[in-house]
């Protein structure tokens, strides 16, 4: 089995699927929804399909949804034309049978070993990109996973983090073993956090420039274009799906691009290169066979215009060499935050 060039690890709920689970009613609704009822975020399907069909790319889905939902979730992905290489779900029935109620809500003790197990279970890729959301501890788990692989978090620290995350002893031991065995390397190139709750992007600054909070999947595609993971044609495939959804216009896509520039997550040179590539696209071929979509020249002009409007204003300064993360504090804080939300009746 040959190693993939790049692995993309995706969460599902609130990252790919528009899921509400802030109340018991939301949870029940989510559990009884059919595959056809489930809605993906505009552009997410196009992005996943693009990634899953590119040679050398591998898509692994790691979701906190229970294993009982595998059939309906797999059917939804099939309906969307999304293929994947791995699909990991949480075995909550087993947790209940073992009386492990704490594990039902636990994020880090579930997701971290799932990620490490996936990394260790197949030939390791030299690059990984991770997709999560702002509703749960995805930013913490993904950064921890990246730092573990890069050798920036040692076993003692990991043990303290797992203790802070209220992991059961055997879960902690298994996670520590997986962390020891996982092929190492500074391989996590990018962490994309979908701002489902519209959290202020600056709240993620502490996680460093590798993590990019995005408001939508056009922004995710732009980041991947800048990273050299997607080409302009693939980026437009995502953009067109978003325009097709009716929830986005060319102006809102261009605004999304400008937002990334203002946040210093996309350089004006990259945007101008993209505009050049889009403008140079011929009128023939698959992408242009849609008279209802804006012509390439119009798209290129809209993108260039957003660069011009900033008139060279300096973007937000981002720490290029951030302080090492104090994961124990982050986990404690996240735990307190979640408890406070539960007390307020938000899941």
């Amino acid at each position, binding site marked *: 089995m040959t190693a993939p060039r790049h692995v993309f690890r995706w969460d599902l709920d609130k990252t790919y699927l528009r899921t509400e689970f802030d109340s018991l009613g939301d949870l029940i609704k989510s559990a009884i929804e059919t595959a056809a009822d489930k809605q993906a975020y505009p552009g997410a399907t196009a992005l996943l399909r693009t990634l899953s069909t590119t040679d050398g790319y591998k898509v692994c889905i790691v979701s906190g949804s229970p294993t009982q939902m595998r059939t309906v979730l797999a059917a939804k992905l099939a309906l969307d034309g999304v293929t994947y290489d791995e699909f990991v779900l949480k075995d909550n029935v087993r947790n209940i049978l073992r009386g492990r109620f704490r594990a039902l809500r636990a994020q880090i003790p579930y997701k971290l070993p799932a990620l490490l197990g996936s990394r260790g279970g197949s030939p390791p890729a030299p690059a990984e990109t991770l997709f999560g959301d702002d509703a749960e501890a995805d930013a913490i788990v993904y950064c921890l996973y990246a730092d573990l692989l890069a050798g920036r978090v040692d076993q003692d620290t990991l043990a303290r983090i797992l203790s802070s995350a209220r992991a059961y002893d055997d879960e902690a031991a298994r996670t520590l073993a997986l962390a020891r065995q996982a092929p190492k390397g500074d391989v996590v190139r990018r962490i994309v956090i979908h701002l489902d709750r519209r959290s202020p*992007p600056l709240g993620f600054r502490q996680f460093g420039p590798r993590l990019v909070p995005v408001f939508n999947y056009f922004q995710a595609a732009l980041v991947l274009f800048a990273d050299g993971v997607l080409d302009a044609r693939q980026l437009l495939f995502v953009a067109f799906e978003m325009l097709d959804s009716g929830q986005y*216009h060319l102006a809102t896509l261009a*605004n999304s691009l400008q937002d990334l520039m*203002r946040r210093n997550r996309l350089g004006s040179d990259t945007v101008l290169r993209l505009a050049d590539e889009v403008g140079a696209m011929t009128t023939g071929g698959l992408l242009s066979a849609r008279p209802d979509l804006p012509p390439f020249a119009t798209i290129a002009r809209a993108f260039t215009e957003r660069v011009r409007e900033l008139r060279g*204003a300096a973007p937000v300064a981002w720490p290029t060499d951030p302080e090492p993360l104090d994961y124990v504090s982050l986990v404690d804080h996240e735990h307190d935050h979640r408890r406070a939300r539960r007390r307020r009746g938000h899941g």
Partner: protein
Amino acid sequence: MQRIVVDAMGGDHAPEEIVKGAAEASLALPDAELILVGDAEVIGATLPRLRHDGARVRVHHAAQVVEMDEKPGEALAAKPDASILIAAGLVAAGEGDALVSAGNTGASVLACARAWKLIPGVRRAALASVYPTELRRGEKNDPFSLILDVGATIDASAEDLVTFAIMGAAYASLVSRNRRPRVALLSNGTEAGKGPAAVVEAHQLLLEATQLNFIGNVEGLDIPRGVADVIVCNGFVGNVVLKMLEGVSETVVRLARYAHKEKLTWRIGLMALSSALAQLKAVTDWQQYGGAPLLGLEHPFIKAHGRSTAPAITNAIKVAAKASAGDLCGHIGRGLAELSARREGSAP
């Protein structure tokens, strides 16, 4: 999609509160695009601290600002890259549908008047203001009446006053969802012959040439009662009335504070009324209403209060979006065209 241009640098609390208000509006108005005009570096540093939708907010850099205490004409001449000038220019160029500013009133009005055309049939624009009243109106049970003009046109002719009446009625029917607003002329008596010549002539024109729900003349004391939904006067009178009403309100608050300090029995009385007073404050809170529309130009302009904080800006943006979505300027234009046609038809 409604494209609302916001002067991010105008107002006592700009740009922070303006950007906050726009950020909130980006979440509250799913079909609006907010174009923030101002120092892109400052706005760019403020936005990521706030909950907002990055796809609905666009920043257009403007290097200069007209300060609140500057003389409008001189400031605009000296600052060609002022945020209000750029903002009005964007709307004129078709890049925005409506404008919101909490900045220097004179400079804002002047910038719009220079960049935008008047609606055909309008000779002079009017600045309208809202005032809390005893009676409520419209589908929204709105506790505000509209007074115009409050300062844009100091000396208005009878024709101007009729135009103001049509513009005010169009605004009230759209924003307050008041299908047939009661329109009145402000005068020194309710009789048709009372008041200066322009008011007397306007009274006759409104009765004979328009199909407005014109209820005649009202006096100053009728304003807070809410007898009329739209009160028409020239800019000089309107400005004096508005300032006096504001002064009375402030004096009442000061008297209440004095009473609170002075006697225990008065304090107890005020405490007993506290929930009612709080409710009154909520109803009459100008921040809830957003701002004053400048009527008569080809695009909607909402002038938010200079002291506006984020909620007032959000509400001003909502009003601007509503005015744009409801084609306020088109309504005014059609109202004036009907008036013109009616008068031509009845001409000997």
